[in-house]
């Protein structure tokens, strides 16, 4: 029979902590030091550059080399010849300028928290999935589920993207210079999606919250996705956001359409199932 292994986390008492009934946590102190990076991150200098030739390397080796350069304090890394390999540039929880000189395969730059990534090519499926913070800019096109479950940061594709863009988006901003495929914004929960071109069928299907801006035509809206009202703040925000990446809405930002949740599918509550039976 398998037994739980006693390890460092047990020694630190993390398994004895009472989790039940702790909805409110008071940790904040006004006396905190003013650190600007995570306590566990590498202290990198963005004026120091390093290059990796990935021609003969496996994805694991590429990721390991990126990490090794960060440990040396190099904050500006270029990866040459990525050869459309899958799963590279992932899990970087550090500030860093990272450039890929050509295309990536699927699951590129996933699970990142902080770096600024530039991909001088195309990307496959699920680029920057679960991204937490930072910027990812793709010069070419992207595959489907672009920015799946993204939670923060700016994810920019200057070309067109496939279906289910920003599926389960929980925050952050996805910007698409061209068209997006069907079911974009599917189950979106918050965050912003800016589509400069056209959007495919079922845009924003089952979205709980968040905002989708479209510069072109929408083939069809999904369930519970409804037109919203553009405000002056929206226009200002869109203008500055697109300017940041040198992009433009074909008909101008003012002519973009805004879409939000109709909130007919909302069913948020934290009652236990037994309590639900009592009230329903």
């Amino acid at each position: 029979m398998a037994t739980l292994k006693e390890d460092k986390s047990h020694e630190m008492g993390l398994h004895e902590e009472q989790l039940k009934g702790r909805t409110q946590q008071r940790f904040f102190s006004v006396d905190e030091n003013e650190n600007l990076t995570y306590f566990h991150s590498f202290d990198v200098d963005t004026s120091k550059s390093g290059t990796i030739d990935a021609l003969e390397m496996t994805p694991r080796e590429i990721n390991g080399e990126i990490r090794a350069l960060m440990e040396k304090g190099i904050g500006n890394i270029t990866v040459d010849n990525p050869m459309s390999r899958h799963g590279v540039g992932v899990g970087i929880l550090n500030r860093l300028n990272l450039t890929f000189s050509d295309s990536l395969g699927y699951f590129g730059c996933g699970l990142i928290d902080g770096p600024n990534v530039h991909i001088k090519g195309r990307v496959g499926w699920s680029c920057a999935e679960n991204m937490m913070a930072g910027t990812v800019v793709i010069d070419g096109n992207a595959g489907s589920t672009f920015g799946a479950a993204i939670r923060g940061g700016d994810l920019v594709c200057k070309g067109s993207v496939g279906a289910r863009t920003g599926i389960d988006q929980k925050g952050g901003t996805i910007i698409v210079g061209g068209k997006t495929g069907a079911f974009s914004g599917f189950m979106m929960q918050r965050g912003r999606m800016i589509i400069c071109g056209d959007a495919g069928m079922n845009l924003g299907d089952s979205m709980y919250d968040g905002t989708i801006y479209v510069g072109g035509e929408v083939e069809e809206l999904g369930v519970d996705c409804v037109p919203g009202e553009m405000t002056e703040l929206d226009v200002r925000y869109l203008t500055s956001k697109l300017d940041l990446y040198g992009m433009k809405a074909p008909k101008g930002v003012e002519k973009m359409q805004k879409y939000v949740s109709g909130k007919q599918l909302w069913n948020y509550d934290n009652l236990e199932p037994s309590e639900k039976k009592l009230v329903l």
Partner: protein
Amino acid sequence: MSTNEETFVVGADGLDTDREQEIGQHIGYRYDVNLVPDLKFITPFLQKYIDKMGWKDLNWLEDVHMGYEGDQAAVFDRNINGWVTIPDTITLPDNQQERDMIARELLIKFQMSENHPMVDLNNAYRKF
């Protein structure tokens, strides 16, 4: 906290829909998640942070807003999946955009602190 928010937070009068009245709680988030930030309210600390990170705007902090926990102003920290309450000693302005900027600044100070729970988790579970 403004009077409107106090009503929203403390009293059941703030419950709008029949469904909310029925279950006795609000449905949805504790702030307007779709409110886009107004950069004219950015604080010097936040500016220093985004300069350090090499960004030109608030980046992921666009999704951080001042909410509440119980009857206290609080900010949600996604790294601990919990609300961090704001000390009473901090006076909050009457404008949501300004309050959001304060929430962002306090959250960064908290997340980057050596007292953050993530530091313990990192020490305990980091594999490489």
